[in-house]
């Protein structure tokens, strides 16, 4: 994976879910064969319209998992508190596991809040393994100092975004097939037997009674 692609991936994963950002990433990195400079402009336009439609469809399907008015503030708050607590523990030499009770409450609230969304996600995507892995990794991440809570913040949304990108690319390929340059298709078509593509004009005598 190139550095550029890695940075773009991190950007789409960590920044708030935006249809345009997700679509741009998929267009540039997952479906680059359909949008490179060799593809004629009219095809690109058709593909872009299709990708827009599919992006809307998929992001709408996962809209409640991608963002939530309740889940996001609780999640961000709990994780910010955990990071602050860890950093303060380092600075004041107090052991890092001395998290405040508020932090634990927030973590519990975040987890409880996430459960229905995780279940919905698993049902929609059939990614039961991913959903289970996310839940199991939650306490591990939370107990890791500084980095753990930072990673846990928005981990579920990142998993959903990855699934959304994958689903957009899959649906696009399903609908538009593998793009083949016009030149190749033309070469193939020219090799097809004439007999399969012709209609023999009827003679006048054959048209009597038709």
């Amino acid at each position, binding site marked *: 994976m190139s550095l550029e692609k890695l940075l773009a991936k991190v950007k789409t994963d960590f920044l708030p879910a935006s249809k345009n950002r997700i679509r741009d990433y998929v267009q540039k990195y997952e479906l680059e064969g359909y949008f490179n400079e060799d593809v004629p402009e009219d095809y690109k336009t058709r593909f872009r319209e299709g990708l827009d439609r599919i992006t809307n469809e998929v992001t709408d399907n996962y809209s409640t998992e991608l963002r939530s008015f309740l889940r996001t503030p609780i999640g961000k708050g709990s994780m910010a508190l955990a990071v602050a607590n860890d950093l303060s523990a380092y600075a004041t030499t107090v052991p890092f596991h001395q998290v405040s009770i508020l932090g634990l409450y927030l973590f519990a609230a975040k987890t409880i809040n996430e459960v229905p969304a995780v279940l919905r996600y698993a049902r929609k995507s059939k990614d039961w393994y991913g959903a289970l892995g996310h839940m199991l990794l939650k306490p591990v991440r939370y107990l890791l100092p500084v980095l753990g809570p930072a990673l846990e913040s928005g981990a579920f949304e990142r998993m959903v975004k990855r699934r959304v990108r994958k689903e957009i690319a899959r649906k696009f390929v399903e609908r538009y097939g593998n793009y083949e340059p*016009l030149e190749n*298709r*033309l070469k193939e*078509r*020219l*090799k*097809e*037997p*004439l*007999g399969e*593509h*012709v*209609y*023999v*004009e*009827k*003679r006048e005598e054959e048209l009597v009674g038709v």
Partner: protein
Amino acid sequence: MTEDSIIKITIHKALTCNADENVKEIAKKLKDSKDRRIFVVDKQDKLIGIITTTDLVYKTLCDREKSSEMKASDVMVNEVKAVDLSEDFEKALEIMNELKTFTCPVTDKEKMVGVISYHELVNYIFTSLQK
């Protein structure tokens, strides 16, 4: 026009004559149909030659005395390049390109079927590729 003719390339019926047909009759056929070429076929409809208006002019007017007795076989060009239905589009385009014509005779196991036009062929190929 049937549904078939809309989505496929039309093979147009071609003007044909027999090898023993008189040139006068042939000239009349060409005049009536406002055509510039006539295909010569045998009894089994097998394509055996082609006569163009140029052939008629050059070969009959130069020998006026014999012209009234001349038959298609006397003025026709024997080697006719045609594309068979089992052959590909490329072959048809090759023939038209080689002969610098915009039509190509089509045969089915050597039997004359009709003619296809260059424009219809190219148009069909590109239209079908855009679908």
